[in-house]
């Protein structure tokens, strides 16, 4: 009996070791450990043994069964591992093939610039105000200290609809409307983005429609230096920390004093190039202290309140910031152009 059991064990272990796949292994399991297998057979035949041998043989038979079971499990794991590896190998793909494209659009570059500026000023306590594109002569000109026949009206050639209605030539009428809304009560801090219109032939540097962002702050004790500081924050945000600004006196009927802001030329770093007309400086926006007459006309007491305002040409900013050479690109909507502005801004 003993010999038979030892023989079975050796035989089984040898077969297990030689098993090439899970099916063979399962056949071995059935053959040796199954209900009709030799070990069961041995155990079944125990009754014929003398009683003193029975526990010895029984223990041995169990031992053999255990050893075989353990080996089977071990081999099974091995074979499973092999099979898995084989399967994974089969499943290998070319990871360099392109992925399934997900469409993702983005803001128009002008919106991108506007949004960046809006968010900067929202952080500084400003709200965003909007107004109509078709304005009355009063809001576009008169309330801004530009009475009829004022020579400065020539500065902005206007699309008129009737004698009194026109396409706004700047976003400043939104200032006036907002001032009226505040009924002479400061503080007021707003920025007003929007479309504006001038009688210009469309070419590389002119567009009959373009975007402006206007800023306005009215409070007690607003100073020219506050305007300078605010514009400095704006320039650094839009053009980078190393951007320098300078103010030059200028003239707008609705501000006094009026200034124009230049930024240091990024392209040549002040060396002089065609973009800055060899001056090292690029004109970027107009601004000034709100004219007392404008304050008064819109219901603010100029003795109590002062304010500053600035107006930015969005196309100009975008052209400088992204190096765009033709203003018409903004309105042609070539997707090869539009798709270039998908990256996050600094």
């Amino acid at each position, binding site marked *: 009996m003993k010999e038979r059991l030892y023989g079975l064990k050796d035989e089984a272990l040898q077969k297990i070791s030689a098993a090439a796949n899970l099916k063979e292994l399962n056949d071995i399991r059935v053959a040796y450990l199954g209900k009709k297998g030799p070990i069961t057979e041995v155990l079944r035949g125990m009754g014929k043994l003398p009683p003193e041998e029975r526990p010895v043989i029984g223990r041995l038979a169990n031992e053999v069964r255990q050893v075989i079971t353990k080996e089977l499990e071990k081999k099974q794991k091995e074979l499973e591992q092999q099979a898995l590896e084989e399967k994974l190998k089969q499943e290998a793909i070319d990871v360099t093939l392109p992925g399934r494209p997900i469409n993702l*659009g983005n803001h128009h570059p002008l919106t991108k610039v506007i949004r960046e500026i809006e968010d900067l000023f*929202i952080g500084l306590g400003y709200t965003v105000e909007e107004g109509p594109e078709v304005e009355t002569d009063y809001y576009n000109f008169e309330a801004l200290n530009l009475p009829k026949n004022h020579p400065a009206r020539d500065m902005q050639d206007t699309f008129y609809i009737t004698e009194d209605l026109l396409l706004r030539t700047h976003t400043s009428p939104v200032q006036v409307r907002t001032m009226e809304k505040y009924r002479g009560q400061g503080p007021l801090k707003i920025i007003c983005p929007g479309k504006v219109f001038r009688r210009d032939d469309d070419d590389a540097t002119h567009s009959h429609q373009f975007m402006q962002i206007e800023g306005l702050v009215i409070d007690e004790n607003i100073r*020219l230096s506050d305007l300078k500081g605010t514009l400095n924050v704006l320039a650094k945000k839009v053009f980078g920390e190393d951007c320098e600004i300078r103010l030059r006196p200028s003239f707008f009927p609705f501000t006094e004093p009026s200034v124009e802001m230049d930024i240091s030329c990024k392209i040549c770093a002040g060396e002089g190039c065609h973009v800055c*007309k060899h001056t090292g400086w690029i004109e970027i926006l107009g601004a000034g202290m709100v004219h007392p007459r404008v304050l008064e006309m819109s219901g603010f007491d100029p003795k109590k309140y002062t304010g500053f305002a600035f107006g930015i040409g969005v196309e100009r900013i975008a052209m400088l910031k992204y190096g765009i050479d033709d203003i018409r690109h903004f309105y042609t*909507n070539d997707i090869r152009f*539009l798709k270039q502005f998908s990256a996050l801004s600094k």
Partner: protein
Amino acid sequence: MRVSYKWLQEYVDLSNVTPEELAEKITLTGIEVEEVIRPDAEIKNIITGQVLECKKHPNADQLSICLVDVGEEEPVQIICGAPNVSAGQKVIVAKPGARLPGGLKIKKAKIRGEVSNGMICSLEELGIESRVVPKEYADGIFVLPEDTPVGIDAVPLLGLDDAILVLDLTANRADCLSMVGVAFEVGAILNKSVHLPEVKKNQGSGERVEDYISIKVANPEDAPLYTAKVIKNVKIGPSPLWLQNRLMASGIRPHNNVVDITNYILLEYGQPLHAFDYDRIGSKEILVRRAQPGEVIVTLDDVERKLTEEDLLITNGKEPVALAGVMGGANSEVTEETTTVLLESAYFNGTTIRKTSKYHGLRSEASSRFEKGVDPERVRLAAERAAQLIVELAGGEIVDGIAEFAELEMEPVEIQIEVGKMNRFLGTELAEDEVAAILDRLQFPYQMNGESVTVQIPSRRWDLAIPEDLYEEIARIYGYNNIPFTLPQGNQTQGGLTQYQKKRRVVREVLEGAGLNEAITYSLTSHEKYGQFSPITVEPVRLMMPMSEEHAELRVSLIPHLLDAVSYNQARKNNDTFLYEIGSIFINRGKDVQPQEVEHVAGVLTGLYVNHPWQGEKIPVDFFIVKGVLEQLFAKLNLTERITYEKAVLDGMHPGQTAHILLDHDVIGFLGKIHPEREKEYDVKNVYAFEINLEKLLQEELPESTYKPIPRFPAITRDIALIVDKDTEAYELQKVIKETGGKLLQTVKVFDVYEGKHVAEGKKSIAFTMEFYDPERTLTDEEVNRINEKIVERLRTTHGAELRQ
């Protein structure tokens, strides 16, 4: 304004500042210097010469062979093509080795077989604009005065060794439309004194001007000050070269000595003058009056102009002799025969002049100055100075006195400021003595009383009226660069976006997340495109004077210009184009009423929405892709349950593939396929579009998100496949299912639609999957089956639906 650096030096000491440095300083202090022109920058080696002989070139009709004395031992032979060259002339010669503007190098050459040792120059060839070259030399070489020495450098002779500062003057700084005005500005900037030309009391002829002329002004408001001087026995001829040089450098063409002097004074003082031929006026009277309707004048440029009552005229009592402040009349023009000159110096109403100049499209150096204002105190001074120069340069005698009409009342302007208040306005800390020093530099008289400063504004600075004007003067001379950087200190305000603005940003994000790129198109459209894709039938809002028919009316739909963009892209093989735009449309509400502006969002999609060929996925845009994008948007705005779609017929849209979008029961927009005929008009293919009234879409406040417990009990699903009439709308069936399903029915979704051979003609199969769920307990199959049966039964009654076997 073109400012000659050399000329300016006569009034202000510029010895320590180069033209470029000066330009920089002027720019930073108040007036933008557009450019500094160095007329001699590209000129080398040009000298004076005298033509000794001049004969026809044997091989070329248009050319002459000239023998020119250039101050060397031997005269040189030069071939010249100018029609006005002749022997005896003093001319400008560029010898071999010379350089001329435009990079031209002069070399010894053979022209048609004859040697040419250089070139005789026209002024244009020296870089002077042809419009300012004296007429007689406009088509040929320039002839120098007879007394010009031969062989000397021609650059200083022509005043080209100068720098021209081109000022870009803002409307308020018309005081710098004169050399004297610029001198005061530069004097203040450089802290230097200003030397004005000395105007001597002119020695008269002993006759009285009143015997020559009397002045009447019909309406004093038009010409509150009108003066005239008479100079007799003048000899008209060319001006001396220095004067011509200055005029040309300033952009004015020399004519003759008298006219040149009036222009010279205009440049010097900013006061326009006009010289009449006294004898041709034909009367002893000047009457300044408005034109009668239909009256005509032939101006100096030989154009006959029909006048209106808005035009102000200088007349001889009857006939017009000049269009006041704009241009003289041809009938009284100074000519070579003129011997007696009537010199007008006046102060005209700027608005009147502006209207005339605009109406007749006639802008002159004079009119632009009157429009922007002149210094009334210089009116008489300019006349005296001009008379003096006429005597010096054209001979003649001044008739004693000045004839005038004078009703100009000048209120002296005084501005009072407080230094402390000014500092609070500017953010500076200027001391009183610093303010005083700046006022001294500006040459403004003032009295200081502690903090308070009273400033008398000189009449040359009529742009200054209120304290803020003076703050600006002080700040700019102090230097804007010296003003500190601060931020507003006062009351805190809370920044942010309105609900609407926030939601609009969400709309952008959803559409961009779905692959649409933002486009921006023009608000102005053509009459042809007006009304397309829109139910709006009111008259368009139209510009009074459109620049082109393409941009003449305000749009009522965003789709036309988006289709233009698609067309542009498709023409460039950008086949997969998905665009959206947010912008206003304009609805006419009647003349002189602002149109209603409504913000819309629209989109156009064409091409492959999914383009992933190597895995066999190429899905072109269709109605349901566009609808899916919009459903995503409505879901984000929490409107899914309130949005419905209805089949629609709309201008420019495919009649079978277009739907209205309804919010509750209100149509807020549409989506669908562009009509093939409209596609042809725009030269586009397979475009789907949508347009929605954004203001209606975003009118309601978004609710806060709220938490609903995650289901604890399993849901049960049931699928039903129905056979219905082909034109039954899924939405109708879904509505019945929902109504019948009760509160246990959580969702209903279409999962299959089939038409074809397994379904009877005129029918279709449509299958729904329904999910039932009770948050309180596990549902039993039996109760769900009961509901399911009820639904099927109901659908049978309402739509004749049969279960598909």
